[in-house]
C-alpha cells in the first residue's frame, strides 16, 4: 500500500475573474521511505497540491488517500490523527513561526495539542532541538534571534515533533543562501535515514531536487507532464517540457555553458484561468502539432519506468 495516493485530484478557486483550475487531474503515488520531488514553474499548482494533501485547501474532485484512508470525509478529531502522520515545512522560515512565541513554545505546540504532559513535552522539545542541531537554550529565545537557516531547522523540529510518516516540504530551502541550503538538505537526508520518514519535496530548484529525490514528478499548469525515477528523468527526459526545464537550468561550468546547445523556452506559463485546450503545453511546445490543440494527452509509460503525458514521445 502506498503511503500517499492521489487519484485524479482537482483543486479549483473561484475568483472574480473566473474559475482557476490550479490542480487539474493529478494522480500520483508515494511509497514508504521514498522522497518524491515535485517540480515546476511558479503558478503550476505544486504548492496548492501540497496544501490539498494537508487538507488546507478543499479539493473539487478526486481522492487523496493517506495510508489507504480517504481524507475528504474526516471530521475534526480524525483530521488531528491524520495530521500527526502528515506534516509540512513551509518555504518562508520568517513567516511560518509566531514572532511572539518562544521557539520552545512553537516546537511544543504539536505535543500540547496531542495532550502530552508538560514533562514529556519539555523532554521532547529538547530532543527535537538536539536532532536538528540547535543549542538547547534556543527554546527560551524568539525567532528573530535566529538566522534563516536556523529558523528552517526550528520548522523542521516542529514538523518532526509527533514522528510523522510523511513530511511535505514546500520549497524548504528556496529562501536560504547556497551554503546554508546544503546544510538543511543534509539534515533532511539524515533525519530520513534515522526515522524512515518520507518526503514530498516541492521545489522549483532542479539542482536541489536532483540531489534529494528518488523519483520526480514534473508539473505544468495543474497537470503532470512526466513522472519517473530521478536518474531516468535527468538522463533521458521524454516530455518536451521536462527537456526544456532541464535545459534552462544554468550549469556551473563555463566551457560547457558556452558550447552546449540550448533551446530557451519562449513565452510564459499560460493563465490557469484560461488554460489552452488540448495539451496544456502546446502553446510553448517545440514539437506541437494540430492533434495537441484538440486532444489532451494522458500519462502513459515511455520506457525506463517513466510516465509522460505527450502524444509524440
Amino acid at each position, binding site marked *: 500500500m502506498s503511503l500517499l495516493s492521489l487519484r485524479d485530484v482537482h483543486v479549483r478557486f473561484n475568483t472574480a475573474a473566473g474559475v482557476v483550475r490550479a490542480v487539474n487531474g493529478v494522480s500520483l503515488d508515494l511509497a514508504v521511505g521514498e522522497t518524491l520531488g515535485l517540480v515546476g514553474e511558479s503558478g503550476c499548482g505544486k504548492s496548492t497540491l501540497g496544501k490539498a494533501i494537508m487538507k488546507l485547501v478543499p479539493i473539487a474532485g478526486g481522492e487523496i488517500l493517506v495510508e489507504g484512508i480517504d481524507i475528504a470525509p474526516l471530521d475534526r478529531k480524525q483530521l488531528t490523527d491524520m495530521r500527526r502522520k502528515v506534516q509540512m515545512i513551509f518555504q518562508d522560515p520568517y513567516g511560518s513561526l509566531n514572532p511572539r512565541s518562544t521557539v520552545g513554545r512553537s516546537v511544543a505546540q504539536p505535543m500540547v495539542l496531542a495532550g502530552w504532559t508538560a514533562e514529556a513535552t519539555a523532554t521532547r522539545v529538547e530532543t527535537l532541538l538536539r536532532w536538528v542541531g540547535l543549542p538547547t537554550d534556543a527554546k527560551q529565545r524568539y525567532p528573530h534571534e535566529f538566522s534563516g537557516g536556523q529558523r528552517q531547522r526550528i520548522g523542521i523540529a516542529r514538523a518532526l515533533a509527533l514522528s510523522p510518516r510523511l513530511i511535505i516540504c514546500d520549497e524548504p530551502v528556496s529562501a536560504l*543562501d*547556497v*551554503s546554508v541550503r546544503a546544510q538543511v538538505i543534509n539534515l533532511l537526508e539524515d533525519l530520513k535515514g534515522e526515522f524512515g520518514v518520507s518526503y514530498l519535496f516541492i521545489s*522549483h530548484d532542479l539542482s536541489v531536487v536532483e*540531489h534529494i529525490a528518488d523519483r520526480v514528478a514534473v508539473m505544468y499548469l495543474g497537470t503532470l507532464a512526466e513522472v519517473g525515477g530521478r536518474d531516468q528523468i535527468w538522463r533521458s527526459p521524454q516530455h518536451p517540457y521536462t527537456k526544456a526545464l532541464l535545459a534552462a537550468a544554468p*550549469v*556551473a561550468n563555463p*566551457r560547457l555553458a558556452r558550447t552546449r546547445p540550448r533551446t530557451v523556452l519562449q513565452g*510564459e506559463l499560460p493563465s490557469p484561468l484560461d488554460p489552452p485546450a488540448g495539451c496544456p503545453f502546446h502553446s510553448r511546445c517545440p514539437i506541437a502539432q494540430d492533434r495537441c490543440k484538440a486532444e489532451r494527452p494522458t500519462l502513459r509509460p515511455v520506457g525506463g519506468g517513466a510516465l509522460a503525458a505527450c502524444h509524440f514521445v
Partner: protein
Amino acid sequence: MALPLEVVGLSTTLFTRRGEMKAVDGLSLSVGAGETVALVGESGCGKSLSALSIMRLLPDPPARIVGGEVRLNGRDLVQLPEEGMLDIRGQEIGMIFQDPMSSLNPVATIEKQIAEVLMTHTDLGRGQARARAHELLEMVGMPDAGRRLDAYPHQLSGGMCQRVVIAMAIACSPSVLIADEPTTALDVTVQAQVLALLKKLQADAGMAMVFITHDLGVVAETADRVVVMYAGRKVEEAAVDDLFDTPLHPYTAGRLVACFAAERG
C-alpha cells in the same frame, strides 16, 4: 581611453548605534566595454552594498563612502555633488534590481515609468517618449508590447516586470549596467530568457556589465571575469574559466564544492 567603470579602493562604512561596520572594505574592480564582471559571494558579504555605493544610492546616515574612487568613463563619482548624480543615474549608468515587483511603482502605468526616464534625460516629448517606450518594450521581448504600455505592474508576471525594469535601465543606452541578482526571483525558464536578453542587449550596445549573483551556474553562463567577495573584501579575481578550473582562495574553492555537491548529489 578610460574604462567605462573603474572602482579603486572603495570603502563604505555603516555608522550604527552598535558601532561602525566596514560593509565594503577597499574594493577595486574594473570593467571594459562589452565585458561582464560577476560579483559573487553569499548573503551579507557586501555585493549589493558595493553596487549601491557605485550608484551612490545609500542613505547617509547610516552609510557613508569613506574612501576610494568610482571612475565612470574617467570621472570620479564619489566627488560629484548629488545634483550631478541625478544626471548620471539612468543616463550613463543603469541598474536592475533583484525584486522586479517592488522596484516598480505600483500606481503608475508601465508607459509612465519608462517615459519618466526618457523625459528626464532626453528632450523627448510625451508622445515621442511613449513611442520610444513601446520600442524598448519590444526590444526586451515583452509579449504584446503595445497593450502592456497601459498596464500596471500587478497585471504583469515577475518575468514581464523584470523586462520592464531592464527596458528602463537601458532606455538611455548607458555605458555601464549594474544588475543586482536580476534573475534570482524568477523561474529557471524565465531566468534563461532574461539572461539571453541581457547578453544580446550587451552585445548590441557594447555595455560594460557588473552582474551580482550568488549562483555560480549563472556566473558560468554570463561572466567573462569573476570577483569573489567575502566579508566586504575582494578575496579573489579571475577569468571565469580559471576560477572554475583552479580556484585560488579557500573560500572560492569551498563555494564551488558546495555548488557542485548540490548539483551532482
